[in-house]
């Protein structure tokens, strides 16, 4: 696996072109991400979340690391383990809580649920359940940049280790490779496709090794190391926007909870959970920051600040009204005046 060039905290950030504020911001985004999903569990148990509930525990570092390497003008199509992308791009947590609860304050106004979130103003395309259907959509976004001659714009299109077995993945990656489009393919490899282990999903060492079949490169990175993810993705982005074609960046993690709230993940060996818990992405970033000069007091201030922030955000979400029943079957078709509003 690719690791960062330097293990020394101070030089490592410098080598990546980041400063300590950036690392603190990543840490904070990861804390907010986990905090949202932990509170989501509570809301679900309280009966406030209809339907099901999904989290990305263990993937916070990969999601935030990828998103940090994107630029404001980019589009991203994250999936159900990538709440960190939404948070890093600026989605306010109260809108996520409102989405969970089906309230009008959520990005889909109660029309869709759980992690089917997207706000095009933040450059995020809302995912669908048919994974990885958003991957060819990302290819189309990259195609739009190419046709318009937008040179520093890149699309980020996700799949998982499981979803990479579907035709959408192969057709999308192939088309982007043939045309050397400015897109980076992110593969969340959390080792389990619902209850199906990787060895029943692909016959290569790494699922991203299929890149060779499309004549493109893949990079396998430790997804619990947000900085390593950032480094790999920033390099892939640079290559993509300079005409070098797409790269598959595979972020290896372990899905630390079940597929969704109903699933206890009893099929995952306990020792695997223990091994990966020791590599927890948030704790890893915290230790990195402490090694690079953050004090325990500063850490406490960040953590308590996130807690206070999320309490306020949850209150705001609970105040968000239920959708108006009379709107249920409206807004199925767009009207022409909605078309020419610039997205972002």
């Amino acid at each position: 696996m690719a690791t960062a060039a330097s293990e020394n905290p101070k030089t490592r950030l410098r080598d990546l072109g980041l400063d300590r504020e950036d690392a603190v911001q990543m840490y904070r985004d990861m804390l907010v991400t986990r905090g949202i999903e932990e509170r989501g569990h509570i809301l679900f148990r309280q009966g406030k979340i209809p339907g099901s509930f999904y989290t990305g525990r263990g993937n916070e570092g990969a999601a935030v690391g990828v998103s940090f390497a994107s630029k404001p003008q980019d589009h991203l199509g994250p999936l159900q383990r990538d709440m960190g992308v939404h948070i890093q791009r600026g989605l306010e947590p109260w809108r996520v809580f409102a989405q969970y609860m089906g309230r009008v304050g959520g990005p889909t106004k109660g029309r869709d649920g759980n992690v089917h979130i997207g706000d095009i103003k933040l450059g995020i395309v809302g995912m669908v359940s048919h994974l990885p259907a958003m991957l060819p959509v990302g290819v189309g976004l990259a195609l739009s940049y190419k046709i318009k001659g937008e040179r520093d714009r890149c699309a980020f299109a996700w799949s998982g280790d499981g979803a990479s077995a579907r035709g959408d993945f192969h057709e999308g990656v192939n088309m982007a490779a043939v045309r050397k489009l400015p897109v980076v393919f992110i593969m969340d490899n959390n080792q389990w496709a619902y209850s199906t282990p990787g060895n029943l999903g692909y016959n290569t060492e790494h699922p991203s090794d299929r890149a060779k079949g499309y004549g493109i490169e893949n990079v396998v990175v430790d997804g619990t190391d947000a900085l390593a993810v950032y480094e790999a993705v920033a390099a892939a982005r640079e290559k993509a926007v300079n005409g070098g074609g797409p790269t598959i960046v595979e972020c290896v993690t372990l899905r630390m909870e079940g597929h969704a709230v109903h699933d206890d993940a009893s099929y995952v060996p306990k020792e695997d959970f223990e091994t990966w818990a020791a590599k927890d992405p948030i704790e890893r970033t915290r230790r990195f920051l402490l090694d690079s000069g953050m004090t325990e007091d500063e850490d406490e201030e960040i953590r308590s600040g996130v807690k206070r922030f999320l309490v306020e955000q949850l209150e705001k979400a609970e105040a968000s009204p239920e959708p108006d029943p009379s709107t249920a079957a409206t807004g199925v078709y767009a009207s022409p005046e909605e078309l020419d509003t610039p997205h972002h």
Partner: protein
Amino acid sequence: MAVMTYLQAISEGLRDEMRRDERVFILGEDVGQYGGAFKVTAGLQEEFGEWRVLDTPLSETAIVGAATGAALGGMRPVAEMQFADFVSCAWDHLTTVSAKQYYRMGTPIPMVVRLPCGGGFSGGPFHSQMYDGYFAHVPGLKVVLPATPEDAKGMMIEAIRDPNPVLFFEHKNLYRRIKGEVPEGNYSTPFGKARVAREGADITIIAWSAMVHTATDAAEQLAKEGIDVEVLDMRTISPLDFDAIATSVTKTSKCIVLYEDTRTGGFGAEISARIMEELFETLDGPVKRVATLDSPIPFSPVLEKVVLPQVEDVITAVRELSAY
């Protein structure tokens, strides 16, 4: 006005709109250098370049998925399925992503999928199908089916300008068979407004796409028997101009729905049901359906003729209904 074929009219609509709006681009298999399997896009790559008339790999899923993404990216994609039949490979993207993105996320998806459709020339089970009913059933998609060259051009321009995913069914059996006057310049034909293709007083035939011609051919023969048939060309089935149906059926009091999709569950069944619900009091006979038999489309000309609605089938149905 110039006289041109249905195929030429589609090409002209594409070319006009690409000249007017640089966001419009075409993607599909063999559309560029080769000009498309039916030559609808012939000459366009020479004029607009390799990237605006983009040859893709054989990947219907990626073609439609990329069209959705390009629409989100501010473009006006026109995706070609080489045959309408192959849209089955892109079903997921149309019904799951394109159709629902606006309802869920509030982001319009202005895209067109061109679908060379229909039978009548021994295309067999995989090059002859009429998939209109499947898609008209999906909220969020528009389904449009021009029957004349004038409409083919105007509806192509309208489809490109529409802020929603539009499935443009162009009938292969009309491509070179049907010629007509086409206005010069850039005009668009609004969706959801049916056209009276032939005025009549006795019986209404509701049809669209190639079946409009089958209906008018039958009507000309029936006129000799003293039966005055009105033919309504729906032009689009999603949106559906039910007001036009109501006006015509109220006038004639008898109607036949003629459609090329297979009979059971085809869109004509929906129209028939709605007439029963809303126009029952105006009817002087049962709403009849003439449609493709519930069978795959066979290859042999002898068999295909049995399965697809023919002028004679329409004449028989009209006579029966007339005598009711």
